[in-house]
């Protein structure tokens, strides 16, 4: 069967791969959005923390025999704590300054993170095995779908859904949303906003680490794995509208699929399609697809 002269097999296959990539975009941009919402900081080190998340999983397996499933919980915890330390030690001092300083500081952190791991482990990448029960795959007719990739989509979507639920439907989330609107007043009502900020940052980077662990068996665990991805994710966040939770999830998945589609139709453009969409969106809707108009 063919659609527009493209075999449906290739089309569906690429769309599915796009969805898998989109899952990573979604989880990463979700973390960025959560952080941006409350701290007003574009967390440039998000990609590095994603990479560190993957490395923590790899190191755990290599040196302590910690398996994938444990790593899926442990690594976000470790990285979350790292995030908390970063926030308490460094970011805290920047809130009164122009928000650009947050961007610059986290950029510096990204360089440090990447550099340290590059020195310790080189940039050739370490391979992380697919966990036993997710090896193999299913034949979907149009393509052979490795189980693990299917799991990535399921896990990413679940985490997105949980995060969305936490923020939009719970008391904690309500507090968070209120603090995004008027931090001072929320504090005056007796809520410890500084701690909330710290925890939020920790949680946001834990999401990055989670994505990192998910990615570990898919790509080589490699110090540079986050640095190119993150720019795309920035574009996703800009397109979705900064700070919008639902926006970042939907846009992340959507753009992954669009990218997949481009690979079928005009592969040369697949690397840039997201940036092109970003420019178009900005010209038409400066606040992004889901952003509140300024």
């Amino acid at each position, binding site marked *: 069967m063919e659609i527009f002269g493209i075999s449906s097999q290739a089309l569906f296959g690429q769309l599915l791969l796009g969805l898998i990539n989109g899952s990573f975009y979604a989880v990463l941009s979700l973390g960025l959005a959560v952080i941006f919402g409350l701290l007003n900081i574009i967390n440039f080190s998000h990609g590095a923390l994603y990479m560190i998340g993957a490395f923590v999983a790899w190191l755990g397996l290599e040196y302590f025999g910690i398996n994938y499933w444990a790593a899926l919980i442990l690594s976000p915890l470790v990285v979350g704590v790292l995030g908390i330390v970063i926030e308490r030690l460094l970011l805290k001092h920047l809130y009164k300054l122009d928000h650009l300083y947050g961007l610059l500081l986290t950029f510096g952190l990204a360089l440090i993170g990447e550099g340290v791991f590059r020195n310790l482990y080189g940039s050739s990448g370490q391979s992380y095995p697919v966990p036993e029960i997710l090896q193999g795959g299913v034949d979907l007719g149009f393509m052979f779908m490795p189980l693990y990739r299917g799991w990535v989509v399921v896990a990413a979507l679940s985490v997105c859904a949980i995060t969305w639920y936490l923020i939009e439907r719970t008391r904690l989330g*309500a507090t968070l949303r*209120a603090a995004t609107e008027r931090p001072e*007043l*929320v*504090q005056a*009502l007796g*809520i*410890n906003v500084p701690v909330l900020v710290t925890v939020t940052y920790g949680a946001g980077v834990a999401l990055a680490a989670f994505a990192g662990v998910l990615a570990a068996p898919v790509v080589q665990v490699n110090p540079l794995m986050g640095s190119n991805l993150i720019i795309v994710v920035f574009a996703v966040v800009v397109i979705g509208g900064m700070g919008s939770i639902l926006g970042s999830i939907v846009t992340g998945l959507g753009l992954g699929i669009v990218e997949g589609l481009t690979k079928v139709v005009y592969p040369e453009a697949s690397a840039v399609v997201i940036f092109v969409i970003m420019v178009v969106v900005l010209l038409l809707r400066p606040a992004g697809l889901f952003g509140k108009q300024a």
Partner: protein
Amino acid sequence: MSATAIPSGASAFKPGGELLRITDLHAFYGESHILHGIDLTVNKGELVTLLGRNGAGRSTTMKSILGLVGRRTGKIMFNGTDITAMAPHRIARLGIGFCPEERGIFSGLTTEENLMLPPQVASGGMTLDEIYTLFPNLHERRHSPGTRLSGGEQQMLAMARILRTGAKLLLLDEITEGLAPVIVKKLGEVLRLLKTRGYTILLIEQNFRFAAPLADRHIVLEHGSIVATVTKEALPSQTEMLHQMLGV
């Protein structure tokens, strides 16, 4: 509305005695010097109003108590604790509820989420049911976004929000602003009720007629300084002077 719905004040707050003492308070926004040495005390169970023209510094006084102004000097004691250098949330948790003049309803939260936002700081706050009995409108609209409420409803919400927490000192900034007379009347009843239950209230009002019968004392500010204090007893003889000062 049943009076028994409101439990009496917690035992930690013995009746009488001083609850809030402000000494030589100066406050600044950036480079403008707003308060020029305020001294005032509020006793337990008292209702004190802050009067003054627009821009006299009444809201600033309140915000200073909670540590919400850019910079302040002087000393603020609450229930025997020096709170001058405390973080705002810790001050609030000592039992101070704040209802800001711009109401501060969160648009991203539903009415009920707004209501549930402030944490319980002491026992003896009202329950959700009691609050809904007191303000039936809020019950009706509890699932709609906070800022979709009418101005009056938002004002009720802002008040109700701090009644849940068990705070014993309420800082109320222009709660009748822009409200229909019926609601104003209702708020008057609520305040009276709160008073009988041992709440201590610091009230900013433009609407002198609303404030006069409720208050134990009136404090008048002008250009960031206290220019007069009038007790309930002295009020009849001094009303004329107050009107003068308030620029009528």
